[in-house]
């Protein structure tokens, strides 16, 4: 009941949408009734259109994000761990971090064409820096404890890295990955909207261009929901992972 | 005729304040604390206390005994739901500049300088500009913060922050000073200095003071009377007279003082142990 009251505003918005369209307060081309959007969604699931395009998109986002987490995480920890790496990499990170990543869309196309490669590269480049910065800040905050315990216990340097630095970098690293996750969806949809032959963004553009608006709305809502769901699932997983912090 | 006597003893009216009407009257006040989640807790249970004009009373007890809650009720920050609190004969309804408060963690406005913090209250009282500037300087001097007028709280030590908070509250000249463990966040040395400082200021600008603490020696040293509170639900267990010559530099070694601290410590110890047991 409490949850119902909490999420009632969303239901009211949906109801408002349906009514506004049914009573033709707005043009039904601009806003088809929600019920028709649902029908269109079911149709697209049946024909498999949504699933094929969706899987293509999720593959790109997953591959790009995965690469950025591995490489960005290692780079961030290396920056905190080694002074020379820091001196070399930090200015580049500082220079590229404020770059609006969407500007890279045409370049990735020039390099890798219209297919999966350019999207994966874009998402990788765009998502890497938040992960790197998260890992760096997290690992750096452990430095003091690390030096002391390393001295007192005489532990092997790499062992300390794994036992102390990585776990203490975890909370901030996971936070950086959350930012990256949100960015990956933004970059995925943007790049597919602009140039693609497949994927959610492509489908939205294609349906829109053909005036198939109820189907377009269905895809837009699907992408929005997936972005929301991915974030919630990620939060659930990180809560588990960070249970030791309590 | 036994009942009225009992009541007056509970109210602490056995003291010389009997003839003079008390400035603060706390009468049978109970308070239910409702946490956002979890069960309600009876924080105060039928607490009664009278405080005379210009008297210095310490509320002493283990943590969680509701002593701060009582202070917040007198200050008007929390609503009085059961019982009554009168200040100068009038029931407390809201916070007001007649009752100045000093918090443990200072509650200074971090975006204002020392001077700005002190000026804020004077401004709200509608004091003319020249007058309030002068008054702010006077109080900065009183607490010994000359040279730090334009420092921000983040640039001050804990002791200096608390001096600022005390100056800020004294500056708008409340009749009553409510102090919520004001030295609890300071280190031991600073704490000792601040206690002497507070006494010095209090002797220069006498006010009614209610001082919350869990430090027995601090309570005995500063207060005229110490109200010892019991834990959960918070009640006033006894009120002990603790009038000493505060200006005696050897007071901490005086036999009478040491014995008094010991006596009160024994009263508090049982409560502290009980509180420990109840919390786990």
């Amino acid at each position: 009941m409490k949850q119902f009251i909490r999420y009632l505003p969303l239901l009211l918005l949906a109801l408002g949408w349906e009514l506004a369209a049914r009573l033709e307060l707005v043009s039904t081309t601009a806003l088809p009734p929600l019920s028709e959007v649902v029908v269109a969604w079911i149709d697209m699931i049946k024909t498999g259109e949504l699933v094929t395009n969706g899987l293509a998109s999720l593959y790109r986002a997953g591959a790009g994000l995965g690469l950025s987490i591995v490489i960005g995480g290692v780079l961030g920890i290396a920056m905190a761990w080694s002074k020379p790496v820091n001196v070399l990499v930090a200015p580049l990170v500082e220079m590229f971090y404020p770059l609006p990543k969407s500007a890279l869309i045409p370049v990735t196309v020039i390099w890798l064409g219209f297919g999966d490669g350019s999207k994966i590269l874009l998402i990788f480049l765009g998502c890497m820096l938040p992960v790197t910065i998260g890992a760096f800040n997290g690992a750096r905050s452990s430095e003091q404890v690390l030096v002391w315990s390393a001295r007192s216990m005489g532990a092997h340097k790499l062992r300390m890295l794994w036992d102390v630095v990585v776990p203490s970098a975890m909370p901030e690293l996971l936070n950086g990955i959350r930012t990256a996750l949100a960015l990956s969806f933004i970059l995925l949809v943007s790049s597919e909207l602009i140039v693609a032959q497949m994927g959610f963004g492509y489908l939205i553009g294609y349906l829109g261009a053909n005036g198939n608006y109820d189907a377009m709305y269905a895809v837009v809502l699907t992408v929005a929901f997936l972005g929301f769901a991915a974030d919630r699932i990620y939060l659930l997983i990180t809560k588990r992972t960070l249970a030791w912090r309590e | 005729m036994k009942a009225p006597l009992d009541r007056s003893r509970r109210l602490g009216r056995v003291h010389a304040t009997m003839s003079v009407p008390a400035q603060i009257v706390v009468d049978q006040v109970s308070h239910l604390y409702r946490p956002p989640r979890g069960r309600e807790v009876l924080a105060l249970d039928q607490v009664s206390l009278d405080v005379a004009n210009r008297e210095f009373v310490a509320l002493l007890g283990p943590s969680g005994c509701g002593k701060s809650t009582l202070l917040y009720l007198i200050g008007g920050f929390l609503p009085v739901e059961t019982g009554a609190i009168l200040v100068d004969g009038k029931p407390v309804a809201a916070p007001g500049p007649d009752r100045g408060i000093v918090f443990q963690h200072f509650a200074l406005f971090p975006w204002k300088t020392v001077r700005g913090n002190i000026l804020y209250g004077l401004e709200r009282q509608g004091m003319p500009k020249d007058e309030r500037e002068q008054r702010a300087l006077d109080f900065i001097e009183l607490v010994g913060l000359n040279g730090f007028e334009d420092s921000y709280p983040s640039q001050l030590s804990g002791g200096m922050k608390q001096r600022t908070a005390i100056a800020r509250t004294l500056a708008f000249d409340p009749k009553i000073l409510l102090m919520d463990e004001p030295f609890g966040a300071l280190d031991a040395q600073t704490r000792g200095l601040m206690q002497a400082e507070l006494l010095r200021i209090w002797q220069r600008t006498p006010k009614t003071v209610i001082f919350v603490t869990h430090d027995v020696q601090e309570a005995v040293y500063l207060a005229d009377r110490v109200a010892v509170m019991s834990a959960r639900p918070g009640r006033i267990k006894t009120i002990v007279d603790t009038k000493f010559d505060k200006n005696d530099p050897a007071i901490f070694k005086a036999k009478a003082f040491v014995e008094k601290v010991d006596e009160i410590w024994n009263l508090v110890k049982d409560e502290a142990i009980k509180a420990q047991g109840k919390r786990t």
Partner: protein
Amino acid sequence: MPPDGWPEKAARFTYIVVTRFFSIAVLLAAWEILARSGTFTPFQLPALSNVLLRIWQDAVTGDLAINTALTLYRALVSFAICAVGGVAIGMAMSRNRLAHWFFDPIISVGFPMPKIAFLPVIILWLGVYDVSKISIIVIDAIFPVIAATVIAIQGIERELLWSARNMGAREREMLWQIVLPAALPQIMTGLQVALPLTLIVAVVAEMLMGGYGLGGAMMTASRFANSTGVFAGIVEIAVIGYCLVKAMALLRRRLLIWHQEANEPTTA
């Protein structure tokens, strides 16, 4: 100032300059050399010198100024709307139960959504003019501001509010004199998240809708397989992004001069 410590200071300054720009210089040099060596075709990687030349030409013809001004205008107007609207909604949510009830689920569901997906819908409603560009930017960038404001106001210590009321502050005064300044550090953090978002979305919106603006210019160049133009666009947008982020950090330091962080030695 006494002259002692001068040589050390100069040496330290040089060290900082050299280390800060060393890898950037190497990167730029590598770009030029790789492009000229023929490892990549000029289409894949135009030489840095040609890209700079192209930027110079754009600057001379005035295209650069027009495109930059338009993109900045769209991003900054949206940013201003986000700042004012986001703080207002956040404040309303903190002070009014009904507003909180209505907006809370919308924020918690809407924040993680890729709202850029609504861009075609916005185009459908508002056309391909500035209104629709600004709308989509605001929709994307306002969420961090609202969330930061709500969290900031929730986090204000009650003792701070009590102190102000103790000194005689009235409700209306509390909002401007106490609540807003106390919440400012976190609100600024929210704004610092929102600002780069406005640029990201502005560029995407321009790419998709075409016309003037840095994103539109890049798209035009890309359509004509003019990769020098594309790289010039990236450099221009990167410089703008860098300047905006730095300006915001400067503004933060100015506004929050009283804040703890301002007194800590900064390493970054």
